[in-house]
């Protein structure tokens, strides 16, 4: 079986290769187009969308109890009656929170300018509280709040993508104003203090990537300008892809009022990271993200974002939660091209449009599934480009190979028409002409007979055009014999043979005049596995063989024309007892039979009999399965 397959493959390979080359080129072009589209950033939005969708689909995670948010809500501000919230209120809040012994407090409020009353109190409180981190903005640079030392300040800036959604976080960057100094983000500062306090871990440079940040064994994959679906993005500083924590309430949220009224469990705050910030959207803009399920509107507040980043850092270090990694560009493009090739292969293998469509759906779902599975394992693989490559490569392959098929069949049809024209001329007028020539040489015909025959020839030649025209009308299932007889090729071959025999024998050829006995028998072919074209060729062959008898077997008295089937082979045999063939010049007739021999995978024989006569035989295997048994 295996050997058969291999032989078949070897046998089919050149043809296979030709088909592949025709369809594969457009297929590869489609893949190239997808790759170019990706490389130029045209697919960025789609890839971001896919990333967001994967995040949303991720199963919900338990709340991260290490981080508590204290939001200054709209009701809080209404109650206080002014905005910004005065420094004194913040100082009171800090004092109160400190009594619950949190690990670290992040104050995400821009306090460049004093907001009286209470600025002095706040300044004093901050100076006194070692575990408080202030926030600043660095892009553009604004002053740090209340003169905190730089190691107690973190920036709250974050990079936005072109669609104004947040997917990355800036962990740290060189100080733009003071060269040599380095600044960390608020989230990173909070995580750093927390990890130093609780786990005694310090922030270090990466091992695999010296520019990356690392806590113990956990190194944070650095975002590069072309990471994942990004193209030509500003990757300044140290950036990281944000892996948002999924869940209805990923962090505990308290309001200013909750703290003031003591509406919370003290355990919620002890040894935790507390993030204070304004959450009232009227006063502080929200950050857009579609990466979280159940958000309406799809946006989060500044402290929520900081909490997500801090939580991502902590859970990666402490819980081994997966960080988002990406493949190098080379692998990504290989991956895309690979799926494109699957598309081409699918087009090659499926023979129906339905199967092809079904295959595309199945493989497209598979590509998305693999992308999602990898995402859950922490790898952001390209998903949209492979699916596009798969689809486009398949469509262009299928379209072009279909087009090529049509073109080819048209060419074949044209070739067939030419062949048919030759056949019609060869089996009709040329035979008559040969006959006339022979008699002209033998000088055994009267003038009138010649005239009659030449008129006949004239008629036959004129009929050629008409016959071809008719043949074009229904050439699929009809055949016109040289005698002018029209055959319906849909009837079984043994009946066709008989018709050909009868019709040809009625022609005025010298070999037929002396015949006394004609032994005729055509057995049906079982199973009748011949196609229309094969039947046409077989009928032509028989017509040709009989014409040869008529022309060459002068004085023959016996003609035997039989079609018999034995052991899976059909044998068509034409025997006469005429003078026999003197020369075996390869005329069109012989070429025709050789062509037929190849087409039917059969054998052809034509030889002289002793003492006189000629036998012409064509055999071919009847059942298709025989072909394989033989090979």
């Amino acid at each position: 079986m295996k050997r058969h397959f291999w032989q078949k493959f070897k046998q089919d390979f050149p043809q296979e290769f030709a088909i592949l080359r025709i369809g594969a080129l457009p297929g590869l072009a489609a893949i190239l187009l997808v790759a170019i589209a990706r490389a130029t950033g045209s697919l960025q939005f789609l890839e971001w969308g896919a990333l967001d969708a994967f995040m949303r689909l991720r199963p919900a995670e338990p709340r991260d109890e290490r981080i508590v948010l204290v939001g200054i809500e709209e009701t809080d501000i209404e109650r206080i009656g002014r905005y910004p919230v005065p420094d004194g209120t913040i100082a009171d809040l800090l004092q109160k929170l400190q009594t619950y012994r949190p690990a670290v407090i992040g104050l995400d409020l821009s306090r460049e300018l004093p907001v009286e009353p209470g600025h002095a109190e706040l300044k004093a409180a901050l100076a006194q509280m070692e575990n408080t981190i202030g926030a600043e903005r660095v892009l553009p640079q604004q002053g740090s709040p209340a003169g905190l030392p730089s190691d107690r300040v973190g920036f709250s800036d974050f990079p936005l993508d072109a669609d104004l959604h947040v997917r990355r976080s800036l962990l740290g960057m060189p100080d733009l104003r003071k060269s040599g100094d380095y600044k960390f983000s608020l989230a990173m500062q909070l995580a750093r203090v927390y990890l130093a306090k609780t786990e005694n871990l310090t922030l270090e440079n990466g091992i695999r990537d010296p520019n990356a940040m690392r806590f113990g064994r956990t190194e944070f994959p650095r975002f590069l300008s072309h990471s994942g679906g990004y193209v030509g993005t500003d990757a300044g500083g140290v950036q990281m892809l944000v892996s948002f924590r999924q869940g209805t309430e990923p962090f505990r949220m308290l309001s200013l009022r909750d703290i003031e009224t003591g509406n919370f469990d003290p355990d919620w705050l002890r040894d935790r990271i507390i993030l204070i910030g304004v959450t009232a959207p009227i006063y502080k803009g929200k950050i857009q993200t579609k990466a979280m399920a159940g958000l309406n509107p799809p946006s989060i507040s500044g402290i929520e974002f900081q909490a997500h980043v801090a939580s991502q850092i902590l859970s990666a270090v402490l819980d081994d939660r997966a960080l988002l990694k990406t493949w190098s560009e080379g692998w990504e493009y290989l991956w895309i091209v690979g799926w494109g090739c699957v598309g081409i292969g699918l087009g090659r293998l499926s023979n129906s449009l339905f199967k092809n469509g079904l295959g595309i759906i199945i493989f497209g779902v598979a590509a998305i599934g693999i992308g999602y599975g990898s995402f859950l394992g922490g790898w952001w693989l390209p998903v949209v480009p492979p699916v596009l490559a798969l689809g486009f490569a398949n469509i262009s392959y299928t379209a072009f190979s279909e087009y090529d098929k049509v073109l080819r069949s048209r060419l074949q049809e044209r070739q067939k028409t030419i062949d048919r024209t030759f056949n019609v001329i060869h089996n009709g007028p040329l035979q008559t002409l040969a006959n006339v020539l022979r008699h002209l040489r033998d000088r055994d015909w009267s003038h009138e007979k010649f005239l009659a025959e030449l008129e006949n020839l004239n008629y036959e030649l004129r009929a050629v055009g008409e016959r071809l025209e008719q043949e074009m009308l229904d050439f699929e299932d009809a055949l016109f014999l040289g005698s002018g007889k029209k055959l319906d090729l849909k009837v079984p071959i043994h009946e066709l043979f008989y018709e050909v025999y009868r019709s040809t024998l009625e022609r005025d050829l010298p070999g037929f005049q002396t015949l006394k006995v004609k032994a005729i028998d055509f057995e049906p072919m079982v199973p009748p596995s011949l196609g229309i074209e094969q039947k046409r060729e077989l009928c032509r062959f028989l017509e040709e063989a009989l014409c040869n008898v008529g022309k060459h077997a002068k004085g023959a008295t016996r003609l035997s024309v039989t079609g018999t089937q034995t052991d899976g082979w059909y044998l068509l045999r034409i025997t006469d007892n005429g003078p026999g063939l003197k020369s075996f010049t390869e005329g069109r007739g012989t070429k025709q039979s050789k062509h037929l021999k190849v087409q039917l995978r059969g054998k052809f024989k034509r030889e002289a009999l002793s003492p006189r006569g000629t036998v012409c035989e064509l055999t071919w295997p009847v059942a298709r399965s025989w072909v394989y048994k033989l090979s």
Partner: protein
Amino acid sequence: MESAMENQEIAGLEKPKILVVDDHAVVLGGTIDLLKQKYPEADILTAQTGRETLDAVARSQPDLVVMDLSIPEVEGVTARIDTGLQVLRTLMEKYPHLNLMVQSTYVRSLVRIRPEIDSHTGGFTVTDKGLSGQEMLTRVDWALQGVTHTKDIKGVQAGLEVKPEWLTLLTLAFGEGLQDKAIAQRMRVSERTVRHYWTKVQDALEIYPEEGKNIRIQTEMRAREEGLID
């Protein structure tokens, strides 16, 4: 021996069941009158379309079908020779021993089903509608005897058209002098098939039953004349 047996067969057919097929009521009536003259005891059935014919044959298994070629397939449809030919084909395929007589003005078109006629083992005779009533009755008689009479549909070609096995039969019978039983054994066919070959060869040689003549001897003479046996 042989003729005695043939006579026996005829004796059994004194009350034949005959199906007459023609779409013209006048012709139908004329044919029935003729048949009644010769076979007063006969059970005569009629059919006017192809479908009726097939149904009638299936239902009443007649001894002979006398049919026109130009008949409609069903009532109300134009009569076509193709329909008649197709009905004949079907009958010969389903009932290989059924005796048939084609009575038509288009007998020449039977050439198209020549191979089927040659393989048919029942009687098969052909009569042109222009023939005399007496001649027609003779053909009916021959058909009932299982004789094949198709010389009217021979082509214009020279020479006799035969099947290879008929030549074998002649060689065995006249070359080696074998009897039917021995021939059947040698050719690995039934004796009935051998008899069928005889009627076919005789038809090809245009030898038909005649009072007082030995048909086998006539066959041998004609076969030698025509070069069927060396």
